[in-house]
């Protein structure tokens, strides 16, 4: 009986893996090449959302400036692997430097805000994110560090074991374009982040985060070093953010402050709230929805043509409006998210009047 069940689990896991490996080909055949890139971005956002989930979902520290760490990682990568400073460090060197820088910024943000909670913390982190963005925008004179609003171009693509992911390659007789190869890299990274998140959830650290989220005083009284545990949450969340930022920079080949505005932080937060905070599968679902919906809404132009015979409103202008409406409606009808974590569901049931 148990043997049979185990066999089924392995079978479905194997099918899922094959499905995920084939996905970019299916997507390209079904929806076109541009959707493979969108798929890549969706994976990046899943990584970001899972990183933020550690800070907000597990530890309950509301961070509205998460994109700052994404920016730190991206600019680290951009500066170390582009003609801007004439540096061209290899992938395996930039990876730890970018992650360490992001973690450092995580601690920098976390340290002064240890006493704050809730809305106040949200606002401070929001301010922090804006300050980073303003610096990125303006640190081009008198010493040109970030190249200002123009951003940094010609960033080297990821180079793994002599394979450049920026060029189309032949592997085992298969022709893989750049977005395809990045898809597999990002998929591996997402798998790693999911694995780490799952292990954290049931570890001593994960339980300490939940304890702090639920009642900080009680947690401290039970012998949890709340300061270190909170800083760890910020640092770990920031590290994931920084890694995603680095991958983003090399994937795009270009970074500018435009990509790191407050809206981006808000989108990432919306992903985890929409999906169901604290629940890994919920967060993944939320990230997929929030990246895919605005892209899918581009097709409202076609819809208008079918319905009215002409395009009244440019779909590019319409999609953010529809996205905002979707956000409001989702919160009114599913305030706990689509897939709330079991624990939070229980808490909410108790809180209800």
């Amino acid at each position, binding site marked *: 009986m148990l043997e049979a069940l185990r066999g089924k689990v392995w079978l479905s896991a194997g099918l899922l893996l094959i499905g995920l490996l084939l996905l970019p080909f299916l997507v390209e055949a079904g929806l076109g090449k541009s959707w493979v890139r969108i798929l890549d971005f969706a994976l990046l956002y899943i990584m970001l959302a899972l990183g933020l989930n550690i800070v907000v979902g597990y530890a309950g520290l509301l961070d509205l400036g998460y994109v700052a760490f994404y920016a730190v990682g991206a600019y680290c990568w951009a500066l170390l692997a582009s003609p801007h400073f004439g540096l061209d460090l290899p992938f395996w060197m930039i990876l730890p430097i970018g992650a360490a820088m992001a973690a450092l910024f995580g601690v920098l943000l976390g340290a002064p805000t240890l006493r*704050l*909670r809730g809305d*106040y913390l949200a606002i401070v982190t929001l301010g922090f994110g804006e300050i980073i963005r303003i610096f990125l925008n*303006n640190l081009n004179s008198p010493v040109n560090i970030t190249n200002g609003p123009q951003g940094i171009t010609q960033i080297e693509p990821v180079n793994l074991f002599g394979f450049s992911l920026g060029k189309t390659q032949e592997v085992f007789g298969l022709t893989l374009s750049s977005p395809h190869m990045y898809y597999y890299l990002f998929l591996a990274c997402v798998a790693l982040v999911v694995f780490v998140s799952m292990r954290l959830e049931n570890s001593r650290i994960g339980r300490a985060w939940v304890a702090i989220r639920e009642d900080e005083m009680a947690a401290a009284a039970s012998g949890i070093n709340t300061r270190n545990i909170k800083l760890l949450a910020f640092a770990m969340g920031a590290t994931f953010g920084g890694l995603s930022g680095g991958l983003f920079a090399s994937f795009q080949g270009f970074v500018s402050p435009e990509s790191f505005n407050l809206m981006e932080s808000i989108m990432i937060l919306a992903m985890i709230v929409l999906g169901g905070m604290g629940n890994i599968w919920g967060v993944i679902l939320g990230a997929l929805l929030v990246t895919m919906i605005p892209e899918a809404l581009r097709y409202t132009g076609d819809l208008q043509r079918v319905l009215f015979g002409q395009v009244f409103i440019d779909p590019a202008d319409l999609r953010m409006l529809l996205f905002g409406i979707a956000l409001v409606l989702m*919160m*009114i009808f599913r305030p706990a998210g689509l897939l709330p974590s079991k624990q939070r569901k229980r808490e909410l049931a108790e809180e209800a009047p």
Partner: protein
Amino acid sequence: MDIFAQQLVNGLVLGSVYALVALGYTLVYGILELINFAHGETTMMGAMISITVIGAMVGVAPDLPGVIIVLTGLLVAIPSCMLLGYSIERVAYRPLRHAPRLAPLITAIGLSIVLQNVAMLIWGKQYIAFPTTLLPQGRHEIFGATITDVQIMILVLTVTLMLGLVTMVNRTRLGRAMRATAQAPAVAQLMGVNINAVISATFVIGAGLAAIAGVMVSANYGQAHYHMGFLLGLKAFSAAVLGGIGNLTGAMLGGMLLGIIEALGAGYIGALTGGFLGSHYQDIFAFMVLILVLTLKPSGLLGSKSVERA
């Protein structure tokens, strides 16, 4: 021209606008403990609506005195924004009053996106001009600084509105109901206060003040834009936090202080850093102040409420 005096005047005018918007944040936060992220957009709507009405009036009755035309714009913008504020609370916040804390925050953000995009669809992506020529063009010299008639009007109007609001909150029945609801909603309800009506009134008053602030800021700079409400809202919120959120006097003080800090900062940052940082860092001050205040004195300058809220 004396830079210090000039920046002080600019800072006071800017601070008036921040203060009026900050009052809306503080009123709502005091009662619902909710950051109404869509409040900045209400300000923007006020500016846009008034400019549209003013433009239409100039077309219909170009011979009317300019001040009357601008005043008409203001008198249309105020009730429109009040209606907007009421609807925002009714549609987006009331159903979520007992939801987990993050839900109304996300709703507020969603609303802010909706309002921005609605404005963009109506008025386009360009800056639209406020016909400043309708207002008196006088310029006066005081202590080496130039102050325009428009700026004087902004200052006078702000002070009047603030005094009016303080009187309203402290002296009237509605004000007493508002204070009671902020203190203990459940008890207030038992005492016969209609909480829903009080909360609606709070949103409506805040939105009215935001509309006036929107008209002021567009009259002062001569333009408006669908995106203007966002940063303005963030700064006004910083001002409310600086003064101690939930505290009316604090919001006014915070607004004025923030305006002055920003103007003086922009004027002197170049000299202070040896030219390394320039006046384009102006927007950084609000956030710096915000972080400093919250980390050093989380309750703000005049606030007394505990910060222990999740």
